[in-house]
Every structure is written in C-alpha cells, then in structure tokens.
C-alpha cells in the first residue's frame, strides 16, 4: 500500500503538478503572518485563529484538486487517511513528506522535518511569540478543511515547533467523528 502511494505521488509530482520555486511562497507567507500580527495588535491567539481560518478555506478547495489529480478512492481506516495525507497530500502541495507517528484509529501525528512555510523565519523577539504563536497554523486549517470534505471531522493542532526552540515540528490530528453523508437540499 505505502509503496504504491509513493509511486503515485512521485508520478504526480513529476508529471502533473505545475511547480514553482518555494522561496516566493515562503516569503509571501512570511509577509502575511507579519501583517496579521500587526493588524491584530500582536494578539497571537487571534493570529493563530486567523491563520487557521484561512487554511480552512484553502482546505475546502484544495481537496477537489487532490481528487481530480489522484483518483484515489475512500480511505478504509483512519490509519490509511494518515498515510495518504502525508505521502500524497503533503508531497503534492508542499513537496515534503512528513513522518507519521503515534498513529491509531483515532489520531495521528505528523512530524515535519522540513517545513517550506518556515524557511528563513525567526519569531518576533518579544518574549510572547515563542510561547503563543504557531507560525505554521495555516496547515492546521488546511487539514481540518480538507478532511471535513471527506466527512472526517477532526481536531488538529501543533504540539511543537522548531521555531519555538523545540526539537521537532509536530502537528497532531485527532478524529472527532465521521460525519454522515449529507444530501444537498433539493436532491433526493
């Protein structure tokens, strides 16, 4: 299973994905976060929330491209979901493959050895940002939004970030519930 996922994502990356230098992406994200910090008066809890909301909007739309490109079917287990998110999703959009750790039927963690969002980044030296700001929080929103579109309501959050001086950057995803397929109004 995992082998074929790798072949699939390698093939996608090589042949289907339109690529761009990640530096522009990194810089763009950086100036966004900096501007958000200024606009929200360095209230980092609000910055986190806002980044998550932006990510959520992205996730809702990104999932469509994901399925159009991959033709993957429904995952049978949450473990499988974890594998697909890491090996295909992250690879396809950020060209990195996080490690999947601590996986069971209710949760998994993604450990990002490389994080294209956080290259060239230092957190503000105001004594607060190191404790309160989750710089890459947009990813949390993306995961929530994208998984919600496949009927998985999840809770996601960062537990550590190398930018804060931690050893690893770890993002935890917990399954809240499997949503029922809802039929849009007017379609029986």
């Amino acid at each position, binding site marked *: 299973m995992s082998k074929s996922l790798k072949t699939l994502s390698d093939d996608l990356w090589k042949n289907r*994905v*339109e*690529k*761009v*230098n*990640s*530096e*522009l*992406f990194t*810089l*763009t*994200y*950086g*100036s*966004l976060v*900096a*501007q958000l910090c200024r*606009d929200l008066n360095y209230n980092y809890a609000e910055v986190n929330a806002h980044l998550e909301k*932006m990510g959520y*909007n*992205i996730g809702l*739309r*990104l999932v469509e*491209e994901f399925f159009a490109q991959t033709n993957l079917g429904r995952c049978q287990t949450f473990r499988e979901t974890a594998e697909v998110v890491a090996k295909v999703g992250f690879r*396809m*959009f*950020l*060209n990195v493959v996080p490690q999947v750790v601590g996986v069971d039927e209710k949760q998994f963690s993604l450990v990002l050895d*490389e994080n*294209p969002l956080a*290259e*060239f*980044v*230092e957190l503000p030296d105001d004594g607060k940002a190191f404790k309160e700001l989750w710089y890459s929080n*947009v990813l949390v929103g993306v995961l929530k939004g994208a998984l919600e579109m496949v009927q998985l309501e999840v809770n996601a959050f960062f537990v550590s970030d190398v930018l804060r*001086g931690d050893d690893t950057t770890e993002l935890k995803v917990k399954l809240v519930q499997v949503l029922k397929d809802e039929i849009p109004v007017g379609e029986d």
Partner: protein
Amino acid sequence: MSSSRLLVSGVGYDPAVGPQSTGPQVQQLATSTSSLKRQFSASGGAHSSIFDKNLHRAKHDISLSSLCYLFGEIVSWCDSKSRGVQQLESRLNNLGYSIGIKYLELTSLRENFASGNISSSSKSHATKREVRILEILQFINSSVWKGLFGKMADKLEKSQDLANQYMITDNLPLISKYISVPKEFQHLNCAAFVAGIVEGILDSAYFQANVSAHSFPEPGLPLKTVFVINFDDKVIKRESMRFER
C-alpha cells in the same frame, strides 16, 4: 574593501555576518566562514538562529497551486480590510514591499558569494552594488524575476514621454494566473503585490520610486501586465549629475 576587512569592520548590523557582529571576539575570527559559523552557534544561546544556516538552500519546488491558494486567501483578506479597489491594491503593494526589502539583500548576497566577492579566499573584489538606474532595472528584470518566478520578465522599456518613467512587462504574471477578477473589480490587478516587491527592492537600493501594476490585455495574452516605475526626481537628478558629461 577587502573581504577580511568586511568581516571585522561592521558596526551594528552587517548582513554578511548577522546582528551580533560588534563584539571583540569578532576581531579574532579567522576569515573563513566556517569558523565564523562555529563561533556564532557557540555564543548564540539555546536557539540556533537563522544566521547559522546556509544562505544557499537546495532548490526546493512546491506546487504552484499552493501558492495560488495562499495568495487567493491573502487577496480576500486584504479585500475584507479595505474599502475599494485602491485600498486593496495598496494593501497588496505593502505586503510585497516588505518582501522586496529582504529579497534584494538575499539575492545580492547570494550573487556576490557565488562570484567570490565575499568569500574566504583572498580575492579582494569590491562588493558589487548597482548604482545606475538601468543596471538596477536590468537586475530586477533578469535576476529577481528569475529567482522569484523562474523566468525573465518579458520586456523592459523606458517611457518616451517621461524622463523618470520605466516599464517592465510580464505577459503572464505567475501570481495572477489562477485569479479571476469579478466584474465589479474590473480595475483590480493583483500583481500590485509584485509591484510592491519591485518597489521594495528599488527603495532599499536607494532608487526611490513608485511602482504600480496595470493590466494591458492583448489577444492571446489576457493577463499581460505592465509595471510602471516612476522614479523620484532626485534619483534622476543624481543620475545625471554622476554620469552625464
């Protein structure tokens, strides 16, 4: 300026070394950058800072869609914060501006390292810095565009009517590629963000200018954008004092 002098003479912020370059231990530093790095990580405290990392990264590509999703969110957030197209464009411009300031430093450091101007070897070239309008514009047109968008800009022109006006044309700005502008925003050009980058670069290189992005759709090139650069009069004056006659 010789390369070894450059390392020890910095007072305050020296981009070649980092922010803490004034202590006495700097003067004892050997000229090789590797020993410099060691010193700094030893004295740098618990967190390794970005100055410990290599300036040259292995080239990493990501999906263009990711950039476009992000940029789309940025545009709609800027929109929610502003009244009218003009404010929206100036917000985008500001975001780009902060990138431009940093990007000039990054690319010029890289280019100088690559060509051996600042290095551990004993070559004593002066650090290259563009001082003429045309040179800095060509630098933007080629090096900057290539670094950011993977291609050169399509055209660099001087205005025939105004002495202080130059134009850079991009037939297909990467960033606007997947943005469809609604009818009520028909004058909006999201490449205002790129204009901001250019403005940031020019300002931090002491070529004060205003840069704006304008759409010039042509058959076959619906997204063709012209970046109009208006230099301050003093820049033009300086140029003519230095280089004419």
